[in-house]
């Protein structure tokens, strides 16, 4: 009030005249008072506007916890053109939708447009306002296999991760699979289709286990609870069946140990899970061809199923440590190893298109000696120092077996016996330069003559079958025109099956069949004398001890030990299951074998195999 004139104040009325009152207004004071009055209102309004705006913005942009983006990086994401990624995304989207989730449709043009320049899964999640993103680096390893018309193998092995908004991705399980096809596109397509089931299995478990979804499952939102009913029921059923299958396997192992009545202390080197086949025993440990299988809950049929993994070849040390040396679609028959453990030979089946003879050296590097689209190779055996290899050689799938001997280093063919020339029995290296094999030549064709009057009585006049012979071929020196040397010619009625070299090739053990009932034969290489032994029953898959004059064999699903010198026969196993294919340890102290069991979850469908050993008597 600079000049003492009255100002318009609180509680005073303005003059009721048309003319403007002559009032001296202190602008500064008025302004200050106006501010005093207005600012709380403005602030309040601002807060309300900001609140409403924020709420609207939040509702419009908040990620939806039920919205799931599948962004598997398989040499790029699906929106970047990756076929496996797209196939996984499609399969998961379809299944997650069935279970109440709002999975993002991969092919939707509107979605693709939003992801046009997106390079990460998290960025994609943000753009699409998805609550969850399922990721994983599943970039396939693609290999061109050496087949005439071309063959592509694709493999993948990786972790699947799940992330909610603002969270770091968490591992929810591993997936691995493989595929093979003539063209890479097709191989990747098959790979993607195979991956879908596994990724879904990890994803649904991960989602249902996540606290955000658990909150909805147990929360007050009836709609969200209702949407998730199917998912919860699915996961409950899945967990229950997988748990049950696991319990059954554990129970099986326990029962098998309890059921052993032989009195010998058996050691289980592997468990009953898949199919572990014993290919050899060396100082490295047990050479195992493993066909692993994993249980999974089949979402299409809502029942337990199993995945077959790639075949793997591994050394399992006596300390229990495993060292994988090869992995592939299918390893044909049993691999073989030199007594020292290296090299290893195996037959690869290249997706049915070809078979290989592959050598794996000490460093684990594979080398294919042969790739053939027609021939089938079986049961490779290596000479003691691993420089030579012998295999059964079938010219076609149903052709009779022949014999093929190769130089491991050069792949040169050292010796071959054609399958159609006679019956090839078993074979064994006596040493690096000598290979023994059981063989019977083909009977000469019977000349077509006019039937004799007494034909019906002439059974005894049938031409005699050629005798079974134990032959030896010398592999030293060049060329492949080698003439086998006769070691032993069996008299009529005597036959042999398995041949195994004992004590570094000093003698050969042979399964024998003859009217005298003696079913084991031992051939002394030095004296070239064949001696038959009565082992009080049959022999199957006779194995000679590398360290002493003893053999092990299978009889009616049980493993037996026979001491050649004292004639002691010991039954090593006594149980209800089949035990088979015995092999001595290099020191002869233990006998290793395969023990078979029926999968309790898939009776009469699937056989499980474990590797067991027992102390030699």
């Amino acid at each position, binding site marked *: 009030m600079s000049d003492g004139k009255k100002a318009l104040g609180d509680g005073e009325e303005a003059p009721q005249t048309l003319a403007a009152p002559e009032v001296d207004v202190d602008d500064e004071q008025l302004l200050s008072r106006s501010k005093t009055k207005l600012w709380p209102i403005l602030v309040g309004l601002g807060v309300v506007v900001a609140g409403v705006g924020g709420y609207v913005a939040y509702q419009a942009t908040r990620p939806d916890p039920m919205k799931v983006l599948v962004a598997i990086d398989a040499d790029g994401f*699906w929106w970047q053109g*990756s*076929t496996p990624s*797209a196939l996984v995304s*499609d399969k998961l989207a379809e299944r997650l939708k069935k279970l109440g989730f709002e999975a993002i*449709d*991969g*092919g*939707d*043009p509107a979605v693709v447009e939003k992801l046009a320049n997106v390079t990460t899964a998290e960025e994609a999640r943000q753009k699409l306002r998805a609550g969850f993103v399922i990721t994983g680096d599943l970039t396939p390893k693609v290999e061109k296999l050496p087949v005439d018309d071309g063959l592509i193998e694709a493999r993948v092995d990786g972790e699947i991760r799940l992330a909610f908004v603002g969270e770091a991705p968490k591992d929810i399980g591993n997936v691995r699979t493989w595929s093979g096809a003539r063209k890479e596109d097709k191989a990747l397509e098959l790979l993607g289709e195979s991956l879908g089931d596994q990724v879904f299995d990890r994803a649904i478990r991960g989602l249902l286990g996540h606290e955000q979804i658990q909150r909805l499952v147990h929360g007050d939102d009836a709609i969200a609870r209702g949407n998730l009913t199917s998912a919860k029921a699915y996961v409950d059923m899945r967990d229950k069946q997988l748990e049950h299958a696991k319990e059954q396997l554990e129970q099986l192992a326990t029962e098998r140990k309890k059921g052993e009545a032989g009195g010998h202390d058996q050691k289980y080197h592997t468990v009953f899970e898949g199919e572990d086949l014993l290919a050899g025993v060396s100082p490295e440990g047990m050479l195992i061809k493993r066909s692993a299988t994993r249980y999974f809950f089949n979402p299409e049929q809502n029942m337990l199923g199993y995945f077959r993994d790639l075949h793997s070849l591994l050394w399992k040390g006596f300390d229990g440590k495993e060292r994988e040396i090869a992995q592939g679609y299918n390893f044909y028959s049993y691999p073989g190893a030199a007594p020292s453990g290296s090299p290893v030979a195996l037959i690869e089946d290249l997706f049915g298109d070809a078979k290989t003879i592959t050598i794996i050296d000490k460093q684990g590097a594979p080398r294919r000696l042969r790739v053939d689209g027609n021939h089938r190779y079986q049961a490779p055996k290596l000479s003691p120092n691993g420089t030579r290899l012998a295999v059964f050689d079938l010219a076609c799938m149903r052709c009779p077996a022949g014999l093929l001997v190769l130089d491991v280093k050069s792949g040169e063919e050292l010796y071959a016996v054609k399958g159609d020339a006679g019956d090839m029995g078993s074979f064994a290296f006596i040493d690096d330069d000598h290979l023994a094999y059981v063989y019977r030549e083909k009977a000469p064709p019977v000349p077509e003559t006019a039937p004799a009057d007494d034909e019906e009585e002439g059974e005894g006049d049938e031409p005699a079958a050629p005798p079974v012979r134990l032959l030896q071929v010398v592999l030293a020196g060049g060329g492949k025109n080698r003439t086998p040397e006769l070691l032993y010619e069996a008299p009529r009625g005597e036959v042999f099956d398995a041949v195994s070299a004992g004590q570094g090739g000093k003698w050969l053990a042979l399964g024998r069949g003859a009217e005298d009932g003696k079913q084991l034969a031992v051939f002394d290489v030095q004296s070239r004398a064949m001696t038959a032994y009565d082992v009080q029953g049959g022999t199957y898959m006779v194995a000679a001890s590398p360290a002493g004059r003893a053999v092990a064999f299978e009889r009616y699903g049980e493993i037996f030990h026979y001491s050649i010198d004292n004639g002691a026969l010991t039954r090593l196993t006594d149980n209800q299951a089949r035990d088979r294919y015995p092999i001595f340890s290099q020191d002869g102290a233990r006998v290793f074998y395969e023990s078979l069991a029926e999968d309790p979850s898939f009776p009469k469908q699937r056989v499980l195999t474990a590797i067991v050993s027992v102390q030699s008597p």
Partner: protein
Amino acid sequence: MSTEEAALDTSEAKELYRGLREARLRRRCQWGGLVLGLSFLAPYEVILGVPQFLWQTLGELPPAAILAAFSLSVAGFAIFAGSRWAERSSSLALLVLASLASVLLVSAWGAEAAAWDAVPLPAGFAERPGVLLLPYALAGAGADLAFRSESRLAGRRLLALSAVATLPVYLWPDHGVLPARALVELLVSIPELDSYRFVLGYGLIAALGLLTLFVGLVGVLLAVRPPREEPKLLAPVLTFALPGFLCFFVARSVLLTLAGGSIVSEVVGVVILAAAVGVVSAAIECGVAAFLERKSRSDALPSRAFAGGTVGAVILVGGAQLALSRPPEKGVEWTLKASSPAGDELFGTLLPDWNRSRGRWDQGVREKSSAAQLVEVQRAGRVLLRQSQSVDGELEAPLGLLMQEAKDLDLAGRRWYRLVHHLNETSRQRGLPYYVDPTVLMAQTEHGIVRLFNLDAYRIEHVTRVTVDGEPFSALRVRSLGKKRTSHNLLGFSRDLQPFALVAMDEIEPFAKELAELTEESPPRCFEDAPTGDPALDECGMTLARLLAKKGSFLPLLIAMTERHELQHQADGPLLPIATAVRERMHSYSEEAQVTVNRELSAYVAELTSTDGEPALGLAHLFGFAWSGGRSELAHVSTVAFEALSERSLMKDDELDRDGLRKAYLELSKLGADELRARATDAWQRLYGRTLERVERM
């Protein structure tokens, strides 16, 4: 003049009734204009219970057709605006009549433009019921004017005119049928119907058919004896009789379909009809009254500026539509380079592969996640673009655009044609001997209107350039690439929107061979399944055998005649007037079937005139179709063609007169080639009422 009339004749009374008239016009223009303006929101059709809206088809239509489709709405808004701002009622009346007349004009031209294009304008937009509404509008306006002495004469004339306006409704042939005749036949048939339901249904239809006549007759009665009092009820009843009566049908639909999806469409249709007839009637009434008052009131008629502006706007819109409605240019120069394996693979394999991938993705993504199918489309696209580089770098742009635009699931069919045309045009400019034929199938599905886009590739072997009455036209001889086109056993084909016709060599060659084999039989036959022992059929076989002996091969003849056939299609276009003979023969068939037969008839008769071909071969071809005597389109074509060529009827009791056909064939087969060509030229001219185009090689 009675006391009452004298009272009515006072200037106050005149003023009062003028005010009432003007108020009625403005009121109707307000609600009617709004209804017409918003009519674009109404479904124009209901397919499988799903309403179809104008905006869904916009992409399919050329600009002229879009203008036609929206013309009623534009006119409606103009009328609504006029009701607010036009000071003089006569100005508003002029605006109404000019606007709605423009709608009729623009719609007709737009429909013509669409006929040349990929997809026709929906019938609701193409065929505005202008003529049908006129009797009602005139009767309503006449009744309102006739009771006033100062406008009685004009009112009586309008009433009489309403009766005259009914004549085209009944006497103007529609789809080849005289409506009056159809109505009489319907009336005659009703007593013979054995079901009460049918009697009721057909009775309602007959009543609807008679309604316009009834209104016309009322108009005559009122013209003779005009009302002496204001026809407060009669005038609106006459005006809105048609939409009012249609309400019966709407009610019937409600009862039958329990308010199904089509009801809304029907109700909206009736309201639009009422709006149109209401504003026209009020505009005529006000316009005529204003004309009568032009001497007594200086502001009775519209100002010169308004009238000039309105007329100018009509001319502008009409001119624009005329320009937009021009048919596509025909004839094309295509200097062919040699084909290459890379080009064959690009057009014959990779492009169709990409399109099939796209089709699978299109179908899949509407139902489920289809990322894999999308990836496949992208992969196929990359392969295609890569290959295009090895054929011609210039192809990358049109192919890239095609792939880019085809990402749109709801890509308009017309756009598809344009994109493929762009590719063909690039091929043409680069001299690449390839043509890609686009087609689009549209279907209403649970996912809405779904379009199936197809591509069929051809290698061009030869380009025939001709003039048809001096105008350039072209025909391409093509050979199919890639997978054989299914359901397309055509010797040639032509699309109105394409600037050339196509002659399918890979169809003609086997046909020529097959025909030669038939003529080598004993006795020779001129078509498959032709029985032997019939004099006409035997003569047909012998004729072809002689022709083959003389010419050595049917192939060049068939090529020439197919070219002439397809070029005639190009020249005829979609607006070829339907020949009376076709109308009469096919009056019970759909308009579409009539158009097809009509166009084929023109082409088949025209191909007989080909100087490079042999009319006897064409005649034998037609004879085979006619002999089948079925109801197929080609059977109709060939029978009408024989009737035109022989100038005799070949139908007896709606069945083919085989004796007549035999005689016709034997008679025609005796003619020499030039005589037969001349006969065909005459027949075409009789059928279509004008001279057959002259085709000359360039």
